[in-house]
């Protein structure tokens, strides 16, 4: 059974039109070129605004919301939480470069010592447990507020995710890429189906956002949620929407996906936290 699966997996890998022999840099160039050609009226920097960069009507409504955005309450709360010392007297600033200010664009990164992808939320919780505090829930609440504050202090900073010259880093990137292009769930759809090939099209009453620049505005205040949520909250939701069992938040699958997904948007600026429908 295992051998058959391995052979099948290998066959699928070869069959995938994009993976054979392409380097991550080539993938990234192809990816960005695809969206620039698909949406010629959208300047590159504007892709950080998702559907609002490709649809004028919804952009107008979104700009009105941005005048006094709902996530402002979360940023204030996040700042308070970020500055509050742990029971041992230390603060989050002690765990991060530059005291945790203006560093959102460095995540996720591949940690060559640990051999895994580190996301911002993972780093936040590891900071807590290292200082004797309980870990926070991964998808919403305090962790989203703290992540929102950290993203807000990093607005305008350009993403430049690196893939270190380490076969494990490349493997993580490849796993993330494979996840993105692989069909899953009862509806048998891949992330790429909605967000690359059908980006800009309508799915019931919603417009499909382009995958380019998709993560720059996280954590996100979604009107649907009536609150703020993290990247992995949305990943789980997307998996559920195609009727696939979601992976655990901050598990290897979603971290590898986030690694690939963010790398594809190198060159774009942080604009989190964001407000979306």
């Amino acid at each position, binding site marked *: 059974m295992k051998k058959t699966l391995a052979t099948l997996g290998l066959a699928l890998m070869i069959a995938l039109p994009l993976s054979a022999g392409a380097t991550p840099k080539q993938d990234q160039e192809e990816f960005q070129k695809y969206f620039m050609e698909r949406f010629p009226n959208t300047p590159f920097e504007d892709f950080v605004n998702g559907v609002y960069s490709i649809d004028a009507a919804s952009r107008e409504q979104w700009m009105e919301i941005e*005048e*006094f955005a*709902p996530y*402002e*309450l979360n940023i*204030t*709360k996040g700042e*308070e939480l970020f500055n509050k010392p742990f029971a041992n007297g230390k603060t989050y600033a002690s765990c991060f470069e530059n005291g945790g200010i203006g560093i959102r664009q460095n995540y996720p990164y591949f940690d060559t010592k640990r051999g895994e992808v580190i996301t911002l939320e993972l780093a936040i919780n590891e900071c807590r447990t290292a200082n004797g505090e309980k870990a926070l829930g991964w998808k919403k609440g305090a962790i989203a507020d703290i992540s929102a504050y950290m993203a807000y202090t990093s607005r305008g900073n350009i993403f430049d995710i690196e893939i270190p010259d380490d076969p494990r880093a490349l493997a993580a990137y490849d796993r993330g890429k494979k996840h993105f292009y692989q069909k899953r769930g009862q509806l048998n759809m891949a992330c790429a189906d909605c967000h690359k090939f059908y980006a800009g099209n309508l799915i019931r009453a919603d417009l499909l956002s382009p995958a380019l620049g998709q993560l720059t505005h996280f954590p996100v205040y979604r009107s649907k949620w*009536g609150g703020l949520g993290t990247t992995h909250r949305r990943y789980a939701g997307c998996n559920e929407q195609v009727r696939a069992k979601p992976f655990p938040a901050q598990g290897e699958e979603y971290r590898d996906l986030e690694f690939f997904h963010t790398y594809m948007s190198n060159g774009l600026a942080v604009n989190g936290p964001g407000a979306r429908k």
Partner: protein
Amino acid sequence: MATLKIRAKEQDGVTTVKTLISHPMESGQRKDSKTGKLIPGHYVTELTAEHNGKQVMSANWGGGISKNPYLSFKFKGAAAGDSIKISWVDNMGKSDSAEAEIK
């Protein structure tokens, strides 16, 4: 944490005030998914805005207004540098207020 964020801007004699209020605005119609019991209503019932000691706007709200409400209104008779004060009272007797400078 203060529950009101206020921004006020005066232009051509008209002051536009925008405020984002942090409040659960629980309607009283929702049921707790675990216990099956109704979650008691907890919402702002009255909101007032004052300028120079005079009330310039008052609103009667209920459970139909959503969580963390955003309100925007305009009024005449203020100048940049003046102060606007917004206060709310809810059905559980809680209240809060905040002031902001009109820019």
